[in-house]
């Protein structure tokens, strides 16, 4: 019998970075997107099959926030890890992601996370420099380039996170 784990994962990122699109495209979704604007959170599940166990990532997609201060931190309570999403074409979203990470770290301590640089399909328009990404990787970050449109790197990103959490 394979062990099935559940893990709460929060999707964090600036406004319009494509979090919701990522989820919408690759995740079994049952709730309507209007939840985001009403309740401020939408919950989806991503099942990741590992070699010895199944991990159900319960994804809490929080409403996109530009103002970090307005982020409902209570939604992060109990999260096993989180996914930071930034738009590769807009460096400011990386800044938002970095500050979100600091905020989470301050409130909840170090948690496993993965940084997704979205809109990889628009790689030519990327304004985030590779050096910057390399620097983050050197700091021990898991950084993945993904594309909500093509699905590139998405499964890999969730798989990486699931593996970390299931350890």
């Amino acid at each position, binding site marked *: *019998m394979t062990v099935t784990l*559940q893990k*709460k994962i929060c999707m964090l990122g600036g406004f319009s970075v494509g979090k919701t699109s990522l989820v919408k495209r690759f995740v079994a979704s*049952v*709730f309507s997107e209007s939840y985001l604007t009403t*309740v401020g959170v939408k*919950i989806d599940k991503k099942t990741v099959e590992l070699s010895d166990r199944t991990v159900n990532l*319960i994804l809490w997609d929080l409403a996109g926030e530009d103002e970090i201060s307005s982020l*409902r931190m209570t939604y992060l309570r*109990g999260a096993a890890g989180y996914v930071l999403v930034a738009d590769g074409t807009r460096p400011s979203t990386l800044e938002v992601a970095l500050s979100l990470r600091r905020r989470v770290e301050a409130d909840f301590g170090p948690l496993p996370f993965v940084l997704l640089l979205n809109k990889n399909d628009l790689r030519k328009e990327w304004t985030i420099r590779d050096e910057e990404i390399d620097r983050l990787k050197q700091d021990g970050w898991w950084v993945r380039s993904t594309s909500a449109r093509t699905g590139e790197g998405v499964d890999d990103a969730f798989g990486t996170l699931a593996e970390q959490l299931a350890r």
Partner: protein
Amino acid sequence: MSASAAAKLEWLAGPFSDDPGIDRKALAGLLVELARNLEPQFGSEPNGVRPIDPRLEQLRTLLVGPEIEMLSRLSEVIEDPEQLAVAVGRILPAAIAQVSNDGRLGDVLAPALEKATQSSIRSDPRTLLNILYPLIVPAIRKSIVETIDETFQSLNEALRHSLTWRGLRWRWEAWRTGTSFADVVLKHTLVYQVEHVFLIHHHTGLLISHVAAEDAAGQDPQLVSSMLVAIQDFVRDSFSGAEHQGLDTARLGELWLWSEPGPIATLVAVIRGNPPEGLHETLREVLSRIHDERRHALESFDGDSSGFADVDANLRKCVALGQRASEFAARRFPWFVALVGLILLAFAGAAGWWWWQDEQAWEHARQLTAAKQRIWDRYVAQLRAEPGVVITEAGQRDGKFVVAGLRDPLAVDPQLLLRQAEIDPSGVVSRWQLYEGLEPAFVLKRLQASLDLPPSVTLAVEGNHIVARGSAASTWIERARTAGRMLPAGGPSLDLSRLHDINEGAIGKLSEAIQSHEIHFNFNESLPAPGQDAILDQLAKELTELASLASSLHVTARVMLTGHSDDAGNGTFNLSLSAARAEAVRALLKKRGVDPDLLAVRGAGQFEPLEVASSEAARSANRRVSFKVAIEE
């Protein structure tokens, strides 16, 4: 360092202790062995071991001097409570943090903490109250609200159904089962089914366990549970005043969502229909049981929900909860048909009972009447047999017995007979006309009553005659003869022929003898003339005999002594002289032993002369006292 060095020197200079811990012989052997390694020719045996050897102590100091110094410092710390407290205090938090996962720490600390709490409460209860206040108040408030909700629910339903036909049926059911009307109303109106039960980990919002009813549809429970927690958080964050509470009830059409928060996990039930408020309590009990049984597993929950099979079983009990309308319809006993049947049976039974009672009463009355009639008939027959009673009418009228007829006054008293027959006189009307009966027995009775029968006479009925026997004075016989002649013709006659007249016997002869005597007097003398003592003696003898004879015959004898005078002189004087002469004779007779009561005296004066003549001889004969004997019964 100088202090410790000095201590070392002091230790060296001190008296050599006779340390029993050192086997000096073995040590000496060891030293010899060492020496032999250096110089094989060294003597093979230690030659003599001194009990105290300062060199050994020197050797010890050289070998373990620093350790000894350290040990002495440590023992100093351990033996001084102040220093020890400081030392332990430095590592205590770290030590506790180290073993915080060990359950034993809690077990060990619990009693001390309990005592501490108790003493804190004793010294100032407000401290603990202030700590608990934020927890207690919302809990109490919630409990009160739920109780009020429950009451209102019950009241509302009861009011809504109180006056309908169905309401009346439920009232009957309440009466039959001994429950309150409100409970019955709730039982019927609160049709519900628990469709889903989620046990959700508070902190992570992850699903620990989920059980759904067989036919219940629903989304992925893991997502639902997280969403539920998210919504709870949302409500809690969005509205002030709800920081410590969650969303406990939500309703969407027919669906209810009830949430019961626990310390670690929340129980959420999705209920279809109209659940009773009392279900909150049931859910809370299940939640509390789960917490009691699996607290440790819940605390360490990290997303692995395997191993919560027993929790599933608990939740399944919740899902089994429900109140189905169809169940009641199927189980319903046709109470109304039964009731109508029962009422009809009761009426029939009552009618039968009344009829039977009536019959019994009638029968009883009949028996009683018959018994009364028998007694009455017996009484009438007895009365009819009585002499002197003629019954002309006997029967019943207006519920009373009636008897009428003729009755001789000497006949038996009908009222007396009535009492003897034990008949209530108030139930009897009697009318009697008096008459004189001619039965010999009654004639006899009447004669007895009127004739003043002397004891020596008996009357008896012989055929159609009444015969008198015995003896009686002639006066009585004469009176009886008169009475006999007065008897009605055709009736019994009085036969006096068997009766002896006592005057004709010895007493008659004696009376004649007495009456033949006379006592004579001289002129104008009230004492008898001399020479009559013999006559007086004879008289006295006869009178005494008369008295005794009368007594033996049960008759009364009376002797009248009548004094007489001659016709010379005044008439009035002659009357008193004659009375005096009678008195004198009575005195003389009394003197001779005659009972004076036997003797009566009277003076007749000159009016009853023996001889009516004016000669001296006639006058002398008239001066006398005469005797007259009367025998009375």
